[in-house]
């Protein structure tokens, strides 16, 4: 007979009196400053004066809300069959990428590094790359290695093409072993730029490897982009199957990052088949689900594959999902099936059920460009007012698009868009001009706590809640999922703050 074991973790354990006393004793070592002073400064950081100073910051970034190029490149690599992401540069970067994805997807993540050291800083990283390719190929037996770089290799100026060629000549990898590569310095762009470069490199490499005529097909291609919801890719496939559309997902990392626990770990699971890439060149069109992480890729496909590329919009919310489905129907000539129409109807029904609670709620949103645009659009549909919108890696084009969305709705008039700003800027915004709740990644939890508002976790990374990435946020089902989490967050708050007489059973 087993008995239930009770264990205290650090949330509860250190609240007990013994430990609290210890904390008090320790205060003598803390740079002396009274509790009253702490309170005063806390209040001061809520003022307009502090906000202005905060926004005048020049040299310092506090609590960044973006990651770097090779992180995106690793995700792009994981979308292909038997592919090992390999990062040329110092080793620590790759350890971070693996932890980052592991903590978000709750999955093991394969990726290796050429582990450059001080010698390489002086003599260049060729030996590390050549040896590293050989070791990776024999240890992890991939079908393809997708190579990106860290800052170190880029500052030195390593010549990837020449080094890979050397590895072939020395027999570390075979003549025809595919090694697409992309230069992905962290000091330029962000993870979405790196995704783009790697994706373009993989597609062009596999396509140009087998020159010849392009055979036209009836299929369409889909590229997910820096997609951190495996559920989104699954949802996408569902929509296309319902419509009877034949398709190829290029860069399908949904299986690799959501494989079943059946007692046998496979290093590579699923992914786009390598031989499907050249065939994809003959498709009717390519749908880039996200626009900003696929700019270079889009250009390449238009020019070399000579097919139309539909760039976004990322189908979050009813309107954008409608637009996506309409475009697919238009290009493939397929009917929109009743099942999809019914699903849409049901989600609209759900919107109407909840609308009274959402109406006029003010929110702050932070995240990557496509997801932020989608969330703005969704919020406006359900009557939520986006007020503070922070997109650290957004560009001018994003800003124009975001304002166009906001201006088109009376719910968007208070909305202000900030690109290049960090989460400490957002904190000032939340404290000087409060909102009802925030939408964004786990890193926003500090801000949300300081502002005493709930955080609806959407985006990347989400380390502190489980399984959200398995639930789509795109398509009609995705709109329903977003609606559910937002409305229930609001209802939860209502209950929490309700005086006795308003603690209602029916909401």
């Amino acid at each position, binding site marked *: 007979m087993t008995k239930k074991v009770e264990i205290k973790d650090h949330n509860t354990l250190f609240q007990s009196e013994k430990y609290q006393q210890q904390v008090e004793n320790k205060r003598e070592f803390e740079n002396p400053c009274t509790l009253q002073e702490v309170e005063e400064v806390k209040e001061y950081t809520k003022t307009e004066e502090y906000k202005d100073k905060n926004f005048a910051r020049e040299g310092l970034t506090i609590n960044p809300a973006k990651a770097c190029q090779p992180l995106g490149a690793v995700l792009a690599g994981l979308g292909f069959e038997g592919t090992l992401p390999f990062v040329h540069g110092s080793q*620590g970067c790759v350890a971070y990428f693996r932890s980052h994805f*592991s903590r978000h997807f709750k999955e093991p993540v394969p990726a290796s*590094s050429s582990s450059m050291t001080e010698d390489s800083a002086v003599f260049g990283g060729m030996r590390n790359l050549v040896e590293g390719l050989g070791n990776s190929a024999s240890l992890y037996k991939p079908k393809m290695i997708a190579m990106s770089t860290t800052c*170190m290799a880029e500052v030195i100026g390593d010549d990837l093409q020449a080094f890979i060629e050397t590895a072939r000549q020395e027999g570390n990898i075979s003549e025809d072993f595919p090694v697409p590569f992309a230069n992905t310095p962290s000091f330029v762009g962000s993870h979405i730029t790196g995704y783009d470069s790697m994706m373009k490199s993989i597609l062009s490499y596999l396509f140009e490897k087998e020159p010849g005529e392009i055979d036209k097909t009836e299929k369409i291609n889909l590229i997910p982009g820096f997609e951190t919801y495996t559920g989104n890719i699954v949802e996408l496939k569902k929509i296309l199957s319902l419509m009877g559309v034949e398709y190829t997902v290029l860069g399908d990392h949904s299986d690799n990052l959501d494989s079943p626990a059946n007692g046998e*770990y496979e290093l590579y699971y699923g992914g786009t088949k390598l031989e499907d890439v050249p065939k994809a060149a003959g498709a009717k069109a390519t749908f880039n689900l996200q626009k900003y992480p696929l700019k270079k890729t889009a250009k390449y496909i238009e020019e070399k594959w000579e097919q139309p590329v539909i760039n976004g919009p990322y189908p979050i919310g009813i309107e954008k999902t409608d637009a996506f489905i309409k475009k697919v129907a238009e290009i493939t000539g397929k009917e929109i099936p009743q099942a999809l129409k019914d699903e849409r109807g049901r989600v609209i029904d759900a919107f109407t059920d909840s609308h009274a609670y959402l109406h006029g709620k003010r929110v702050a949103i932070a995240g990557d460009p496509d997801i932020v645009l989608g969330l703005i659009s969704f919020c406006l549909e359900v009557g939520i007012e986006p007020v503070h919108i922070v997109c650290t890696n957004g560009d001018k084009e994003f800003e124009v698009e975001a304002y166009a969305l906001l201006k088109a709705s009376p719910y968007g008039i208070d909305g202000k868009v900030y690109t290049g700003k960090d989460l400490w800027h957002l904190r000032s915004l939340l404290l000087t001009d409060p909102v009802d709740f925030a939408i964004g990644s786990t890193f926003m939890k500090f801000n949300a706590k300081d502002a005493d508002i709930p955080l609806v976790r959407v985006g990347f990374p989400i380390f502190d809640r489980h399984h959200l990435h398995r639930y789509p946020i795109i398509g009609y089902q995705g709109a329903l999922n977003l609606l559910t989490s937002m409305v229930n967050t609001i209802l939860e708050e209502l209950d929490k703050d309700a005086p006795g007489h308003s603690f209602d059973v029916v909401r």
Partner: protein
Amino acid sequence: MKRQVMEAFIEPACEHNQPNHKGCAMPKPGEAAGGCSFDGAQITLLPIADVAHLVHGPLACTGNSWESRGSLSSGPRLFQYGFTTDLSEHDIIFGGERKLRQAIYEIIQRFHPPAIFVYSTCVTALIGEDLDAICHDETKKWGTPVIPINSPGFVGSKNLGNRLAGEALLQYVIGTAEPPETTPFDLNLIGEYNIAGEMWDLEPLFNKVGIRVLSHLTGDGRFEEIRYAHRAKANMVVCSRALINMARKMEEKYGIPYFEGSFYGARETSASLRQMGRLFNNPELNKQIENVIKEEEEKLSQDLVYERQILRGLKVVLYTGGVKSWSVITALQELGMKVVAVGTNKSTKDDVARIKERAGHDVELIESDGAARILKAVKTKKADIIIAGGRNMYLALKEQIPFLDINQERHTAYAGYVGLKRLAQHLVHSIQHPIWELVRYKTSWQEELSNDS
């Protein structure tokens, strides 16, 4: 910087420096590698809670890592802020000095920290930023210590980074202020990072025997107390080899004796307490230590009756870093478990010897970081549970093997006598969890399939 790295690299108290073998092990290209020296330096220094930790480099060295360590603070939260100079291509061409100075100014204006630690990264080291000179200059200008941490990622492994961080503390912090009062039994703990609050279990234990922790290096530490560290009467190195240089140099410079020990398991904890007694060399203290050990061990053995019943004879594969690879073995053995394989990729030669000494010679040693090797060991040795760090967790779960996380992300303190009780509880919990029934259970359609074939 070059000189510091070389010094740390060939640390004489580290047995990796033998005539036929020089310096810390370098990572092998092409393997899935662990953290870098920058990461190592952060592990060692970030627990100093009231200091502003500013990363001078491209954004992602901070972006990929801020606020993802398990070191807890009882007071200040400043260490949780991700400060960075966010260098762009432009800065790399023209130099990041102006931006760094501006960032230091902004931190001092906004946050008034007792000190700023400025970390170099691969990029700033390569473009030749003179961190030492800039920091020296800024310290003079503002009166707030601005301390350079020269441990860019490419110089080597996490261990080397720990060591370089220790060098920086020795050079710039320790010995720069005097404690308000001293006691005859002042101890520094070196390499204890208060993961999941372990320090808060240990400190009351020391207080009970009459030992005071003068400086926490660095778990739940404060800048001011670390400046006093040179006045301690003894040093204990908790995380094995990584910070041995600090202890050795403090012995040389200030005459503070040191020992290495661990707090995982009752046996190691008692041994560590006795070692402290030996260094302080006071009969009264020794008597008190013996009393406390007796009392705690008796209480613990009553507390553990149930867990020992469940855990007796179960087999464990242990895959952790450095010191934990041997110190945890003792703890598990105390619970009646058998350690059948141990990962040694981050362990020193000395660590390996200690592993063999504790787990016996037929224990399998897994040298290289390879998922396949761990899984194979579990299967061939018919192990009941894996104990490892976060990155290996999801791998084990895929293979439906019970798993216990022992690295920095964990939420439970395992050190000391009370820690062993918690470790035992967690092991029981992991092994008895109903989920393992579910994964071993064959669905009716699976049975049908096997009947058909």
